[in-house]
């Protein structure tokens, strides 16, 4: 196990370094910079812009900028936003709560839907319930979130006028009123995200359970006279969920990375909307920090999934 871990860690480190080089190069090669809007403004003399570029180190060659960035990153300095003129770390921390809340609850909700529906569908394959669940699942992951999001806004905000479609991170209410307001504004973004995620997870759970439920040991358990509930929960799920656990672990970075489209539609001030506005403004340090952190999380959760998988299923050997 120790050898396995060490080897996986080494690979993960290399992946992190590789990801940072690729990200930095791509961003440096992308055209435009943060002063784009000033360039076409006749009121700003070109030498003023040139001075800003020089002082902010934007005119240095790319490899020097990369080394500077990497050294700072190792020391925990995430960089300095050229647009917001504050540390990128502060900026990201401000956005984490909204993303965790919205994307996190969406993932939880998706799991809460996918598990029972997937299992029930697998228990009676090709039954009416399974047919309906499958149809809905196909519809669910065929409809992109920007479409369902707009549909929800049209229906619940404009036609019925039940829910607000602009998400606010700091509600003025306190106590019970706050919970109510928070719930009201979260319903639409959370549901939109959860439905999309639940749809694919349902299919995954279903096929995974279906595979296990036909195995001989399940037949044995049934013939022992165990109640169906015990058979499913204790015997089937335990094994069927191993791949699902990996799947969920691999999806977890998204909770931190935010959901770009959904956050944009409902104006959720999360990491996703930070990323998109930074891209629009060409604020390279922020784009770099967000994408790099995201890359690190993906690598980390991959590592966790690998380890978890081996721990849950000792049959997996390291090759």
């Amino acid at each position, binding site marked *: 196990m120790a050898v396995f871990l060490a080897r996986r860690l080494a690979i993960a480190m290399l992946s992190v370094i590789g990801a940072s080089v690729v990200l930095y190069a791509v961003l440096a090669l992308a*055209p435009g910079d943060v002063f784009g809007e000033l360039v076409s403004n006749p*009121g700003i003399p070109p030498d003023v812009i040139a001075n800003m570029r020089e*002082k902010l180190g934007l005119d240095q060659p790319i490899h020097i900028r990369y080394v500077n960035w990497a050294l700072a990153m190792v020391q925990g300095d995430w960089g300095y*936003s050229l647009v917001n003129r504050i540390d990128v770390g502060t900026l990201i921390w401000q956005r984490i709560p909204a993303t965790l809340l919205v994307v996190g609850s969406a993932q939880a909700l998706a799991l809460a839907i996918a598990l029972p529906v997937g299992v029930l569908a697998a228990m009676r394959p090709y039954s009416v319930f399974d047919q309906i669940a499958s149809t809905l699942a196909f519809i669910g992951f065929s409809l992109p979130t920007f479409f369902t999001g707009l549909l929800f806004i049209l229906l619940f905000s404009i036609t019925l006028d039940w829910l607000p479609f602009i998400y606010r991170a700091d509600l003025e209410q306190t106590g019970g009123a706050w919970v109510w307001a928070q719930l009201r504004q979260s319903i639409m973004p959370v549901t939109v995200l959860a439905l999309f995620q639940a749809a694919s997870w349902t299919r995954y759970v279903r096929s995974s359970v279906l595979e296990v439920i036909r195995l001989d040991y399940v037949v044995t358990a049934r013939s022992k006279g165990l109640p169906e509930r015990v058979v499913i929960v204790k015997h089937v799920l335990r094994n069927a969920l191993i791949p699902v656990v990996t799947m969920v672990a691999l999806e977890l970075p998204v909770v931190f990375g935010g959901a770009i489209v959904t956050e944009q539609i409902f104006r959720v001030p999360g990491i996703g909307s930070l990323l998109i*506005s930074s891209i629009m403004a060409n604020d390279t340090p922020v784009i770099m920090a967000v994408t790099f952190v995201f890359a690190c999380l993906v690598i980390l959760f991959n590592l966790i999934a690998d380890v978890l998988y081996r721990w849950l299923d000792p049959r997996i050997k390291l090759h």
Partner: protein
Amino acid sequence: MKEQEIRGLIGRVKQGAMSRRDFVQRMLAVGLTAPLATTMLAHNGIAHAQTSFDYTPTKAGGGGTVKLLQWQPASQLNPHFAVGSADQHAIYLFYEPLASWDEEGNLTPILAEELPSVENGGVSQDGTSVTWKLKRGVTWHDGTPFTADDCLFTAEFASDPETLAYTMGTYRDVTFEKIDDHTIRLVFKTPRPFWPDAFVGTRGLILPKHLYQDYRGARAKDAPMNLRPVGTGPFIITNFVPGDLISAKANPNYHVPNRPYFDAIEMKGGGDAASAARAVLQTGEYDFAWNLSVEDEILDSMGASGQGEVRLIAGANIEHMQLNTTDPWTEVDGERASVTTQHPVFKDKAVRDALALLVDRAAIAEFIYGRSGEATGNFINTPDRFTSKNTSWEFDIDKANGLLDAAGWVRGRDGIREKDGVKLSLVFQSPTAGQRQKTQTVVKQACEEAGIAMELKVVAPGIFFSADPGNSDTFGHFYCDIQMYTSPMREPDPGLFMQQFLSSEVSAKANNWQLRNVTRWRNAEFDELEAAASVEMDPVKRAAMFIRMNDLIVEDVVVIPLIYRKVAAGLRTGLKAPLSTWTSYLWRVSDWHYDA
């Protein structure tokens, strides 16, 4: 329009035979800016009209919270770091200049006791100094009095190259003197005909010395006030999440009586223009949204529910086509479009004239831009309802064909005209935007009917507007025959704007394509006029010079002005708000109110 004619008009305004508004409109029609027109009147003893905005509330407060949507969000709140217009707008909630521009271009005092003028001795006869009297009894949000020291400090702060203020150009060539605690004098090295720049408008917001003095130069970026501003403005910040939300409460000690009406203000960012329009016009969740660049029909259908209305504010952005004067297809010393070359086709004025005739501005304005744009024949600025009377532009394919025939351009077998072995085949580029690509197609179709082949090219805006010397697709390189984009002109004075046609500003490899004259047009008369205008103190003479410069560019078809664009704002029914495009739309947010 000649100097004498302008003087005649001013005389009529003085006698009351012509309204000042009509005068401003006439000046706009010949291509001047509204602020320049009102400055001319002020110079001749007709004071800047103070905005006749009807403020009905009789006491401050009581208006509750007003909710604004600015979908391009504010990212930081130091006025001198605001590289984007989103920040430049939002900052007006907290900071104020000495004076600012209203919707019609009138200069209005804010932190100044009165406007300097030649009559009251505020502006020196020779134009080298301006004296401002500051309003007394103004305090910063923390209770410290506002004095001349704050103005001087702001100038010093912005002009320090280490600060990295985008406003550096406004402050660095001026000497600032403190006469007493409430009087300052600005001394210019050369006569400054258009002096309302430092401490005025967007670049003129004044910072508190007592807070910022510890954050000079490179330390400026660490100032906590960059995120929690302490200003003199009508609102005091309570919370700021960069890129998302600004919340503020009313300033109880605001220096204008009975203002602000609203107890609190909230500005939310993010999302897109269409949903911002929906939140104001359709659901009424928000009171105001700025810059609703949404198609006309959609705005109309949203407005039908009666929750809000759309207001179009005269702006100064001109969508225009530029014609390359140099040859973009021949390389000379490692650069194309070198000033040593001549454009193979455009050197024939007949082709340029024909091209101007082939642009169907009326159709483009009506069908592509709708309410948000008007056809224009002028380059400098905002034409209005007088446009058609004073400027000449027409769309006439037959006439264009006639011109080309007469100039010896004959159609080849493929229908494309040629002369001396040169084919009339052009490449036309513009940055991506739905309306622009439609416009390109309209132009292309008309050109094809006149035997001009046209290849359309679309460049991502990030590339097009970048200053990257290594990328030949930028507007500065202009490596094609024609290009089209919007010149953002929030400058109240055309002086800086016209510099983009100076021979000395030619964009080339030698200056890494950083200079402004991208058409590479050179004209001695224009250069002389510009030099004269930059020191001419008589606003009327100066205006006549600008009109002549505008005529030179348009008559020589260096540019083909197309559309003068307006900004759409969404207001919830009943909201009264004086807006402006010459500065932040929030320039008088203290006066926003609902009628009781």
